[in-house]
């Protein structure tokens, strides 16, 4: 069973290494990448199936028993996140086969993508907070490589800003971990959670807040989100979908793991503050989106805004709130990545990401308009799509706790999200193209692009029409969360 637990880390890692050996043969490299991602997906699916039926899997590295060794833990939450990671990797690499803003091929592209997938699933499977820091660093290293590999000035500019703010975040995490280790003598989640019970919660609180702050930087929460809209739009579409789907959500996951599970006894003032950080994140994200006309920048600001809802679920500090966050994270990863991929198809047809320079697509590509409507309306939270259930779970718990102000902000932000999606709809689909002689691109190779986006739209529809399965999984995940994995 250890092999099954390790496979979602090992398979992409081996793929990254073997594709880097094939650097001189781009075609073979790309094929091997597809084989690797298929194997990764199969392993992740097998792991989730096993965890959902047989319960949490755990293994100590090097045979050192807890609390001495580094533990890997696949509980329902971690396994579900790994499966969604594999789904994102697969859709990005399939989309990469089309010619809609695909990432220019380079010897380092495939290895970096797979290394990032390995780092993300490592972060989801680790049961040790220092090990989590290492996976965060690996994520940072591979994402810096992917940002900078095209080496145009705008990418280097984006890389630098992404680097500085993210590095400050990781350093904060490292220092917080050092203090926690000095105070408790432990690093494993289970041991930390037990040690926290014997400590004065107030004494550990500053260190827990430090770690939480680091995760908030990584998640792109207010007011530390400036790195995200400064860098994401310089990425080619498949990589942008990967970044947008996965990276900030690892921060949310880590925050949920730490504040919702390991240090659940943190003073309530911290959760109160987190609630207002969540509200500000929602509001400022959506207001930033309202200003822009570039689809990628609109969507990048919406990542921030949606992160607010996930943080709100954590700030509610209850089982129901956690269920809402888990559901929201999984729904959001699928929807957000899909929107960025569909934006690339729009770009391929109209020749611009800027809504002032595009339009007229509804008349010639009504199917694409329908495809866009599914994730866009799901992001807004229109029933019966998945975003409706996600928002329902979070807002219902907010109301149940009598936090009227937070609930009102959450609903108001939904309205502004509708405004942004309507802006894209009118700009790209409904109004006439500003260029009279414009025709949709002839001979565009979009088969793989439609395959990837269509599959993700089907996942969104399925989660919307039959949410019970995911709700049950989220309940299972949050039930195992409290007290840390053991």
């Amino acid at each position, binding site marked *: 069973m250890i092999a099954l637990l390790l496979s979602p880390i090992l398979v992409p890692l081996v793929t990254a290494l073997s594709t880097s050996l094939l650097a001189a043969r781009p075609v073979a490299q790309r094929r091997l990448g597809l084989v690797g991602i298929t194997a990764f997906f199969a392993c992740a699916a097998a792991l989730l199936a096993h965890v959902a039926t047989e319960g949490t899997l755990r293994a100590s590295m090097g045979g050192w028993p807890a609390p001495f060794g580094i533990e890997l833990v696949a509980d329902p939450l971690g396994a579900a996140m790994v499966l969604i990671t594999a789904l994102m990797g697969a859709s990005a690499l399939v989309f990469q086969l089309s010619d809609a803003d695909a990432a220019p091929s380079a010897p380092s592209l495939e290895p970096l993508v797979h290394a990032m997938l390995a780092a993300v699933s490592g972060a989801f499977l680790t049961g040790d907070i220092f090990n989590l820091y290492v996976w965060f660093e690996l994520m940072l290293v591979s994402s810096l490589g992917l940002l900078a590999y095209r080496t145009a000035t705008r990418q280097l500019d*984006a890389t630098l800003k992404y680097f500085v703010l993210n*590095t*400050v975040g990781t350093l904060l995490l*490292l220092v917080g971990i*050092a203090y926690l*280790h*000095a105070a408790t003598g432990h690093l494993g989640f289970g041991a930390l959670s037990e040690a926290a019970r014997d400590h004065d919660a107030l004494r550990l609180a500053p260190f827990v807040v430090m770690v939480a702050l680091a995760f908030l930087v990584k998640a792109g929460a207010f007011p530390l989100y400036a790195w995200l809209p400064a860098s994401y739009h310089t990425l080619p579409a498949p990589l942008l979908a990967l970044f947008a789907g996965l990276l900030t959500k690892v921060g949310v996951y880590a925050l949920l793991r730490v504040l919702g599970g390991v240090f659940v006894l943190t003073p309530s003032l911290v959760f109160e503050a987190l609630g207002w950080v969540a509200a500000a994140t929602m509001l400022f994200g959506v207001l930033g989106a309202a200003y822009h006309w570039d689809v990628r920048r609109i969507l990048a600001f919406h990542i921030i805004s949606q992160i607010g809802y996930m943080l709100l679920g954590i700030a509610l500090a209850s089982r129901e709130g956690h269920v809402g966050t888990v559901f929201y994270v999984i729904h959001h990863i699928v929807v957000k990545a899909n929107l960025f991929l569909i934006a690339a198809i729009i770009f391929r047809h109209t020749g611009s990401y800027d809504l002032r320079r595009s339009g007229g697509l509804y008349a010639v590509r009504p199917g694409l308009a329908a495809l866009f409507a599914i994730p866009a309306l799901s992001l807004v939270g229109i029933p019966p799509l998945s975003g409706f259930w996600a928002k329902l779970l979070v807002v219902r718990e907010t109301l149940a706790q009598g936090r009227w102000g937070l609930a009102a902000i959450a609903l108001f932000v939904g309205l502004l999200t509708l405004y942004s999606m309507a802006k894209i709809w009118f700009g790209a689909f409904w109004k006439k193209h500003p260029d009279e002689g414009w025709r949709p691109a002839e001979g565009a190779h979009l088969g793989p692009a439609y395959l990837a986006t269509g599959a993700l739209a089907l996942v969104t529809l399925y989660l919307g029409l039959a949410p019970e399965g995911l709700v049950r999984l989220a309940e299972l995940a949050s039930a195992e969360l409290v007290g840390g994995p053991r």
Partner: protein
Amino acid sequence: MTWMLALGVAAIVSAGVYLALSRDLLRCVVGVSLIAAAANLVVFASGRPGDPSPPVIPPGGDVLAAGAAPLPQALVLTAIVIGFSLTCFSLVVVLAIKQRTGVNDSHALRAAEPHALSDGAPPLEEEDDA
């Protein structure tokens, strides 16, 4: 020993933050790597350095009661290696930007986020120059 480390960390963090807040790109990156060095010292200090007793956990226990803990020393090695590689990478990025554009001021560096148009409307998207 801990007090000495604490004072050192305070000095290095202040220098690092001062440099990192600078508009000069090179100073900014060097400042970040100074903060990284201070963070490494904090990790090192979390292992009670300076205690000469042997680092042995008593039978039945699971926390080291006396002696410098070896674990943070292993952890800090990991952090040093990662921090060093990131410093090198960021220096290369800054040098490339400087060579390409001649710009060394973070306020003037607007390649990824161009200024708004003259009427306050958001900028049009920029195309890659490479």
